[in-house]
């Protein structure tokens, strides 16, 4: 079906279009030249609207074991937020950790058309993909976790060559149907299992005999040399520890110039100044990002209210469990590979630490000069549920709104923050970069995040309003693959997304040593571990879209 969207202002940073009035044509599943459409095709007058590509969330925990644990643990969240089904949508529940259907619907209602789960355990990938396949409306993808798994650490201890490690990394990417590699507290989660409670970047883990720096280094090189577009996705060491900004900057250095993505960097930007020995190091971190062009980061902004933190970082979740609210938590071992920790959390604006965390996140947003290298996330649900994105966008775009909020926070936190002196206000163009153009670029989704002819017709139409928050919360229309799925903020058609993956080439002989390892230690056999394209489509229920790797 062909549709013409007439008269809106277009924000398409990939093609440097900044608010120009243009018509957009949709032909079947793709965007086309509006003039090429037949004159009698359906035309929608959107002259009081702005158009952006469908938004992409590159870091959101929406599937996998820990999300499910969080759902069962946060019964209050689900009891308090029941969503009834109707003839269009299925029923669901939850706000901080919504059920799969609810997550998909809420994303679509905000104009998001893709979300990426950043912590897929290799051994749990099948479950994670099933849950993501169950999440309707949006496209999905996962980053598979390495860096605490026995096999890699053993390879490193044995002095394996970089090319052998590359083969292993590529094998895991292929077997788990993911689009990138993530490392969580490199080596630290493994060390925790052997009773180490801290591991700094250059500290040798007594259990594995390697340092986090070495792990980040070999993995970032592996990802780069395999030609995977998304750089190594790094959850750095010492999350949440005052003074951890030095660790974070050291982690950037560990990549030695190779592209690296630091995730939820707000949690890694703390200093130790002041009476409370807790201060903002946003300035140092932003400066480091500005200086090191190989570094990208997403912020992981916190918002006040009840949420639940879900992370693979057992070491730091254990460290934070005393602050659990409501008082229940878990950390657990995932055999051979990783760990997992779930700690409910209530961020309070009258708490000095929480107030400063809020301010640090915004300081990073405002001090990183290049919007192509900083991404809008709340690390859903760790900083806040993803439904707070419109509020976050307003905080970035409206200085007085931001300062009003700041003035209600813990007074000491206000004093310690230099947020009020920051004049910068994000423009719509920059928001479009942060939420569309840059994520599609960094993930290598060539056909998404922009509005040129030939792109997939994932389009969000916002009706212009004075209140930016309302505008971003309730788009006038959302199109997914050319189909109108949302009208006036309400879902009118439910669709299924696809799974984005990369499949780098590798030397198949790596399976020989892997088979021995699997037979000896793993909980399932090697052949059952691998997920094929057919299984993804027929059993798991999500079609695979493969994205090319760069040849290096």
């Amino acid at each position, binding site marked *: 079906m062909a549709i013409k969207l007439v008269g809106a202002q277009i924000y398409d940073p990939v093609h440097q279009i900044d608010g120009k009035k243009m018509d957009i044509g949709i032909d079947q599943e793709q965007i086309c030249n509006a003039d090429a459409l037949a004159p009698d095709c359906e035309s929608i007058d959107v002259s009081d609207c702005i158009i952006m590509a469908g938004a992409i969330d590159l870091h959101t925990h929406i599937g996998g074991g820990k999300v499910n644990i969080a759902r*069962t*643990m*946060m*019964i*209050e969240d689900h*009891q308090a937020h029941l969503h*009834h*089904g*109707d*003839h269009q949508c299925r*029923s669901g529940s939850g706000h901080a950790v919504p059920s799969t259907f609810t997550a998909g619907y809420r994303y679509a209602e905000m104009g998001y058309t893709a979300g990426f789960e950043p912590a897929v355990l290799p051994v749990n990938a099948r479950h994670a993909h099933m849950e993501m396949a169950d999440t309707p409306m949006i496209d999905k993808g996962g980053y598979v976790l390495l860096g605490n798994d026995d096999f890699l650490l053993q390879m490193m201890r044995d002095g394996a060559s970089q090319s052998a490690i590359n083969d292993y990394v590529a094998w895991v990417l292929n077997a788990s149907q993911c689009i990138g590699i993530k490392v969580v507290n490199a080596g630290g989660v493994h060390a925790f299992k052997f009773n180490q409670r801290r591991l700094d970047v250059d500290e040798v883990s007594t259990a594995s005999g390697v340092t986090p720096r070495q792990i980040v280094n070999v993995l970032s090189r592996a990802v780069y040399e395999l030609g995977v577009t998304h750089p190594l996705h790094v959850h750095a060491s010492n999350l949440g520890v005052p003074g951890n900004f030095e660790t974070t900057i050291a982690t950037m250095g560990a990549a030695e110039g190779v592209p690296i993505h630091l995730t939820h960097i707000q949690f890694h930007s703390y200093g130790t100044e002041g009476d409370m020995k807790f201060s903002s190091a946003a300035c140092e971190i932003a400066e480091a990002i500005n200086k090191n062009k190989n570094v990208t980061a997403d912020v992981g902004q916190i918002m006040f209210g009840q949420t639940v933190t879900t992370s693979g970082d057992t070491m730091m979740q254990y460290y934070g469990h005393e602050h659990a609210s*409501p*008082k*229940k938590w878990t950390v657990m071992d995932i055999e051979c590979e990783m760990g997992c920790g779930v700690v409910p959390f209530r961020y309070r604006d009258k708490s000095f630490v929480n107030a400063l965390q809020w301010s640090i996140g915004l300081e990073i947003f405002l001090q990183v000069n290049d919007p192509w290298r900083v991404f809008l996330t709340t690390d859903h649900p760790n900083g806040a549920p993803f439904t707070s994105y419109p509020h976050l966008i307003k905080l970035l775009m409206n200085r007085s709104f931001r300062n009003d909020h700041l003035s209600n926070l813990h007074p000491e936190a206000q004093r310690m923050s230099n947020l009020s002196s920051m004049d910068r206000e994000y423009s719509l163009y920059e928001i479009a970069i942060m939420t569309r153009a840059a994520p599609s670029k960094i993930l290598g989704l060539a056909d998404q995040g922009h509005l040129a002819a030939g792109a997939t017709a994932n389009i969000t139409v916002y009706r212009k309003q004075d209140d930016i928050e309302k505008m971003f919360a309730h788009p006038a229309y959302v199109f997914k693959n050319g189909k109108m799925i949302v009208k006036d903020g309400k879902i009118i058609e439910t669709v299924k997304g696809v799974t984005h993956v990369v499949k780098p080439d590798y030397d198949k002989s790596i399976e020989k040593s892997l088979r021995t390892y699997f037979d000896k230690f793993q909980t399932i056999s090697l052949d059952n571990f691998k997920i094929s394209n057919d299984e993804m489509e027929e059993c798991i229920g999500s079609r695979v879209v493969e994205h090319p790797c760069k040849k290096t």
Partner: protein
Amino acid sequence: MSATTIEYKGSGDHRVNMRWLQQALEQDLSPKEISKSTLNLGSEQTLLGDIFSITGKLSASEITLKNSTPSLDYVGIGLPSGRTLSVEGDCGHYLGQQLAGGRLICTGSALHYAGCNMQAGSIEIMSNAGDYVGGSIAGNRRGMAGGRLLIHGDSGDFTGDLMRRGLLMVAGNIGDHCGNRMIAGTITSMGSVGENAGNSMRRGTLLFPSKPASIATGFSDCGRHSLGFLPLLMRDIRAPESAFQTLHPMRRRVQRYLGDASVDGQGELLIWIG
């Protein structure tokens, strides 16, 4: 003032969520306003007025729910103090969940989770109740936290799961795992008790006329005692009209078991003797 009545007129084919009554009481809505509001039945929507007819004002302290069936869930959820809800007929799940001081009387039976997470007030069920009476919905850290829950018939398994405070009285028999993970409070019965009583019990009192089918493994026999607090407890137990009134008010001889040692528990299981 004439009593307020709410009559259920539905078919009972769908489960009906009675939370609307809690909201209507909080906002003091008129019967007209309530009749016009919508209610979800499965994936269908209906007007409340189509399945309930309401006469009188909701501000009245006594409300009667007529023609109740086991398809009505969450009857009397969060009922505040100063309110009495009389239910004529059977109830579904979660009867009197999070009861906040109100008085709830059900002339029939209730399904699972009756009085779960109740905070204060009293619930009286004339017939039987299902599993997890006075317990906790999955994921909560505490079950019943106060008030009195009286069942004239039998109760199911996991009676008093995670119970924290209050008095739970079952005039008939109790199922398996009675007082499971109990933190504190009192459970008593006039009939038999099933397997694994007192499993993972931390503190609190279980008071039964005969030994349960089996007691959790972490309990030790502490011998026969004459406990001075029992006549005091009997005042509360004998207060409402029930089969418990046949017990002698000064009775105090019991066999005492202490546990559950597997959770370092100090709970006591008392069996009447003599």
